[in-house]
């Protein structure tokens, strides 16, 4: 891997999920956007794989926050905290800030 800092991501966490991701649904979500036109057959597969890596990363980050605060239950606050600490997840700031706290 190119990165020199150890990052808790799907790639180096060795996590293997058995349940298949819903590629067809991913395609539907993509095309719900009016601006999106034609999509090659393999493209939803690519986006789905990226999604899998993304959610693994996000879940692990949430789990780390929960662990740090001494609990084994991941809450909205843990996700919010993890997201604000991760530059990669800047695009989620608006989404989480519009979420009600527990």
């Amino acid at each position, binding site marked *: 891997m190119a990165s020199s800092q150890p*990052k808790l991501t799907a*790639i180096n966490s060795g996590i293997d999920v058995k349940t298949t991701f819903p590629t067809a649904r991913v395609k539907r979500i993509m095309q*719900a956007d009016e601006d999106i036109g034609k999509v090659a057959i393999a*493209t939803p597969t*690519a*986006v789905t794989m990226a999604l899998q890596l993304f959610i693994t990363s996000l879940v692990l980050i949430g789990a780390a926050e929960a662990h740090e605060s001494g609990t084994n239950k991941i809450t909205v606050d843990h996700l919010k905290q993890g997201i604000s600490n*991760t*530059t990669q997840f800047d*695009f*989620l700031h608006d989404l989480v800030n519009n979420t009600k706290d527990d």
Partner: protein
Amino acid sequence: MDPMDIVGKSKEDASLPKATMTKIIKEMLPPDVRVARDAQDLLIECCVEFINLVSSESNEVCNREEKRTIAPEHVLKALEVLGFGEYIEEVYAAYEQHKHETMQDSLKGGKWSNGAEMTEEALLAEQQRMFAEARARMNGGAAVPKQADVDSNVES
């Protein structure tokens, strides 16, 4: 970034199946770690947001290249631009494998039948070559914004 509701089409229809996502999330975690219900919902919303983000950017890449169909290569470029360059290798492998699986069927017989099928060693070598290419593209390409790690020493 929310596109206007299209007449006759609800944005709520375009979401990820809750049961499947709940199962997936559970599989990633050790058995003693749970997720609050509203946190589950938030995770799913984040996923949809991610799909929208990557789709939009892929669309822009596609337009800039003056193509009409969004190809997996556009997705790779979009990931790099968005700061998810570390995903490129696995995403590349995923759709190449998918392409290979679909291709193998059509390679049997027809004009490609002169030994076009690859042995496992050849496949592995091919995969390594592709990874190297993807890595080279990642390293030699535009500067990727610095990514924070879990312990976050970097301020956004």
